[in-house]
């Protein structure tokens, strides 16, 4: 029974990682850049939702929609201002810029919302008790897992079966060739960022519903863990992000529970290293050989 309850904790932590990892992997898969500011867009999304419910008195659902809108716009603006001018620059320059954007967002949030932590009220309350109360599954966990699956399926369908999705895959394979085929590379990448940031808003609300302290640095640690999850599952692969996220959460909880709370992070990363040694592209990553 304790095993089951730890498994549930692991899945609930993992589903939060997974939903963040989906955004990372989406942007990486198409734009081929690591958007380290993703974790901070999550934080902005959570703050927007917090303000909408606490200060404006809106319902949680409306606040989520509002957060998605704000984050989508924010994502497009960030892409236009910070990343677009660097389209031809080396990947390292873009990476550093992303870190800069991350700090910018954190400090802007510090100025706007101040530093004292706020307690986020969950968008979904209540929990299901099984086996006479020995097992508790919170509604937030269920909502997170379900949204994760919905988003994963939605994204897979979108990239596989729509015109924009096809364009995205083309851009991801070869920007230059895609442009020659008449695909507007800039618009495609902007749309990718818009979707990624919209997902970040959802992730932010769910993250803070599960773990309700909200600070300007709230997004950074889960962001790094989720990035790890995306690499674990195979960065660029949408189902891989979900698998990686959930596995990471479960491994983290199990190593805390059965080995040591002191070593849990070390164990998580040791597993990651082993996986990457055996399968360098991650669990579900596709190996693309470079043609010279």
């Amino acid at each position, binding site marked *: 029974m*304790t095993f089951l309850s730890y498994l549930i904790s692991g899945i609930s932590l993992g589903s939060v990682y997974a939903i963040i990892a989906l955004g990372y992997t989406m942007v990486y898969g198409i734009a081929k850049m690591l958007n380290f500011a993703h974790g901070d867009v999550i934080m902005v999304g959570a703050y927007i939702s917090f303000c909408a419910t606490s200060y404006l008195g809106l319902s949680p659902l409306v606040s989520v929609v509002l957060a998605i809108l704000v984050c989508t716009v924010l994502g497009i603006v960030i892409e236009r201002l910070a990343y677009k001018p660097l389209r031809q620059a080396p990947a390292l320059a873009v990476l550093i810029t992303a870190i800069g954007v991350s700090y910018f967002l954190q400090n802007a949030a510090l100025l706007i919302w101040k*530093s004292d932590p*706020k*307690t986020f009220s969950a968008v979904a309350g209540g929990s299901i008790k099984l086996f006479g109360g020995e097992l508790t599954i919170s509604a937030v966990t269920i909502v997170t897992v379900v949204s994760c699956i919905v988003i994963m399926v939605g994204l897979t369908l979108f990239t596989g079966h729509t015109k924009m999705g096809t364009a995205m895959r083309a851009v991801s394979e070869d920007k230059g060739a895609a442009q020659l085929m008449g695909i507007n590379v800039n618009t495609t990448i902007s749309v990718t960022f818009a979707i990624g940031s919209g997902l970040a808003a959802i992730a932010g609300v769910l993250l803070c519903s599960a773990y309700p302290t909200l600070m300007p640095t709230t997004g950074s640690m889960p962001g*790094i863990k989720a990035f790890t999850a995306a690499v674990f599952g195979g960065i660029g692969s949408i189902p891989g992000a979900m698998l990686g996220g959930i596995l990471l959460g479960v491994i983290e909880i199990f190593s805390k529970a059965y080995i040591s709370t*002191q070593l849990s*992070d070390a164990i998580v990363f040791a597993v990651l290293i082993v996986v990457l040694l055996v399968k360098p592209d991650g669990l579900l990553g596709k190996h693309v050989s470079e043609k010279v």
Partner: protein
Amino acid sequence: MRKALSMLLAAAMCTSLLAGCGGSSDTGAADNTADSAADGASTSAAGGVFKLGGTGPLTGAAAIYGNAAKNGAQIAVDEINAEGGAIQFELKYEDDEHDAEKAVNAYNALKDWGMQISLGSVTSKPCEATAAETFADRIFALTPSASSVAVTADKDNMYQMCFADPNQGTASAQYIADQKLGSKIAVIYKNDDVYSSGIYEKFKAEADAKGLEIVSATTFTDASANDFSVQLGEAKSAGADLLFLPMYYQPASLILKQAHDMGYAPKFFGVDGMDGILTLEGFDTSLAEGVMLLTPFNADAEDEKTKSFVEKYKSQFGDVPNQFAADAYDCVYAYKAALEQAGCTADMSAEELCDKLIEAFSSLTFDGLTGETMTWTDGAVSKEPKGMMIQNGAYVGM
């Protein structure tokens, strides 16, 4: 043509920038030397105003502490200045965001401002960094609330107004044993934080001595400060009836919520870092109902001093002061007492003041908001911690 022009402009800008830098740093240095030279001679011009500086997290995760300390100290300074006695203070707080590196920068800014005596830093990690600086620079420092032992260790001019971590850990274990609050104890502590792990070590030693059984001791770090289901699960399955939480209020608020969600309701026992949980925005204070903590200050106390302090704090800052505010308030008054005892004047250099204050504090007995007849040995204060319990969203003495 355009290129040449822009080059010229850029060159002009560079030189003016350079000139600007050189100029300002020159005058800065000149000011400093002039100050220290003048300090010896023309003193009455300063009017007996001591420059008192401190760093603390005015923003960041621990901002509640920094702002409370700053506000508390400000009230004391305002009171003393309004009285118009011989000793007057000028107070300046710089933000360190609870970060050791930023604290040193903040400390340097205070030094440039001309700080003569220091309030150290508000939180432990930054204060360890600034204590090394004040020790090297021979500036006397009395921290309101940085409670780790390393803050005062091997430094003759670093003093604490709060009780040190070992004292908190030891006192907590003694309190739990004496009041028979629990027999099976679980501890969750933050092992990447000297404050939390320091308290835990001393708590464990004293608990063993007192025959308390620690059935579960689990940890978390900055990177895993979200999910406590495992730690709580372990405590629950080990049958712990009291959960000791030597940590700050922010992770503690998550623990209280997650324990509530899983239907685990042991007694919760915190330390001074728990102070602040009731003012956390959006926090459901009913979760903290029955939480016990050791703190030297009770805002509901009936004595005149406390009442007037709480009144002033409420009217100026709109909040009930916590112990950080009270500690900082006491710091300023302790300084006043020590400066009077040692016969210091504001024209003395920081180094002279340092020597005089070290002497004064070794024999000083001080009554404040946070304790009576406080004395100091090796920088550590001796005073009695008081047990508090949260009832109906307020602290009540136990």
